[in-house]
């Protein structure tokens, strides 16, 4: 028995170490291949430059950083009203009711839909709508990408916030009701403030998803290498420029893409870390 225990421990330890080595390997691969671009442009010049010129081999990442931040921020803004209502619905008003279980399974279903399907839907269903509404000439661009992104991150934002709302202790809510509060007042003054940091963390996590989302955004954003000037404008995100150009890139251009990949890795990692840290504080 003791022998089996030792063996199992060995296997588990190896598996755990393997994950660490793997992650380190990814970072190493990205860093080592980024080196050329770092050497040629310097880190700060690279992220501040708007040029992406394959003929003269000059690269800068600012348009893509801008595109990424714009689409992710807009997606969060678009998603808040819907996801917050869903989480209040599931976490407070209809908690543990049949309807709420149905709604939350639909939301979970949404989370499982492959990105490419959202992309297709955005391209063939939503894009013509934007054109018809006169919001954009071709339909492509930051607005279209952000709307689809918003739909994609609703499940992440809402299911986690619903859990935090449901976690608000019953005795606090009863305390508020016993002072003569209405449902709405309890939500406003007790449930939302108490669950506040947890909800905030859920949105940061959803923001992290939006930053890194690739397929649907690549299909919808229009893929131009400029800083988007307005919502109808086209652009590229860090993820979509990599998806678009990695196949035919080599030399310095590939190295520049690697830098963008490395940046995206660290940005999403830190956003996730911040969200997890807030949740840890909440749970204490």
């Amino acid at each position: 028995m003791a022998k089996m225990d030792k063996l199992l421990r060995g296997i588990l330890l190896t598996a755990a170490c393997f994950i660490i080595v793997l992650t380190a390997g990814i970072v190493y691969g990205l860093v080592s291949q980024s080196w050329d671009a770092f050497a040629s442009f310097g880190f700060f010049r690279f992220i501040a430059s708007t040029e992406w010129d394959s003929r003269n081999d000059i690269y800068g990442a600012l348009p893509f950083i801008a595109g990424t931040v714009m689409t992710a921020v807009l997606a969060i803004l678009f998603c808040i009203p819907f996801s917050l209502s869903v989480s209040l619905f599931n976490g407070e008003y209809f908690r543990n009711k049949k309807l709420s279980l149905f709604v939350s399974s639909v939301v979970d279903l949404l989370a499982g839909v492959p990105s490419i399907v959202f992309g297709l839907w955005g391209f063939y269903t939503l894009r013509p709508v934007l054109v018809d509404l006169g919001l954009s000439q071709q339909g492509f661009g930051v607005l279209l990408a952000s709307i689809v992104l918003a739909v994609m991150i609703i499940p992440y934002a809402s299911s986690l916030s619903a859990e935090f709302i449901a976690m608000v202790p019953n005795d606090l809510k009863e305390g508020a009701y016993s002072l003569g509060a209405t449902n709405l007042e309890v939500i406003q003054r007790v449930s939302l403030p108490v669950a506040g940091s947890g909800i905030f963390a859920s949105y940061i996590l959803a923001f992290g998803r939006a930053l890194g989302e690739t397929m649907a955004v690549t299909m919808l954003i229009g893929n131009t290498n400029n800083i988007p000037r307005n919502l109808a404008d086209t652009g590229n995100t860090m993820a979509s420029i990599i998806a678009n150009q990695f196949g035919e890139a080599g030399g310095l251009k590939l190295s520049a893409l690697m830098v963008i990949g490395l940046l995206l890795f660290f940005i999403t990692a830190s956003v996730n870390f911040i969200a997890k840290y807030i949740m840890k504080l909440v749970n204490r």
Partner: protein
Amino acid sequence: MENTINTGYILELKEVSVSYTPGKYAVDKVNARIAPNTVTAIMGPSGCGKSTLLHAINRLHELYPGISTTGEILLKGENIFRMNPMKVRRLAGMVFQRPNPFPTMSISGNVLAGYKLNNISLNKKEKGLIVERSLRSVNLWDEVKDVLNKKGTFLSGGQQQRLCIARALALKPELLLMDEPTSALDPISTSRIEDLILELKKEYTIIIVTHNMSQAARISDNAMFMYLGKLVEYGTTRQMFTKPENKRTEDYLTGSFG
């Protein structure tokens, strides 16, 4: 108001029943009348329906679908089931088993929570007066007057419970309902709350659910003994503890069961 003068009772329970599942009564046809400025203890073994009865008095059961309350409860002669539930809950303040100050609010915010939750706006002077008056009435003012803007959850358990009492009193209720308010507290905090209850009796009418028989003996004027949802015996505390009328009450009080 006229009814108050007529009957002299602040609260009358008429055939009050509460059921969680149809046909099964957690509280079964309870009749009782409670005089103003008294402390009434509700005693009985776990599951006898004493907390359920208390919660019926401020219509807290209505938050949970499936619980049905029947009968009449008259607060100062007015049937509470014909009043706005928010108003009932303001008139019948509730203190819970575990102190439950709102963690996102300061000490003074907690005292004023009832006003804030009901969207009653107060000016700064009124707020100050209510906070001081309420905290003084629970003997907490001297301990917290310099830290009013700190979170209520920083206080000790006993202080938190007194804060919760102050929060209920801030709304000037007619009745104070207390659901085993000292069961989560240490002996010193418990005795402070008991002293407080005796003081508050001068201005308020208090109904307290308690597991603790010696507590009931110390602080209550009248006592109810409940068993299996029924009000078995209701009389003065002195009489119940010296010569109970019912055999079950006697068995419970002498520790034969419960």
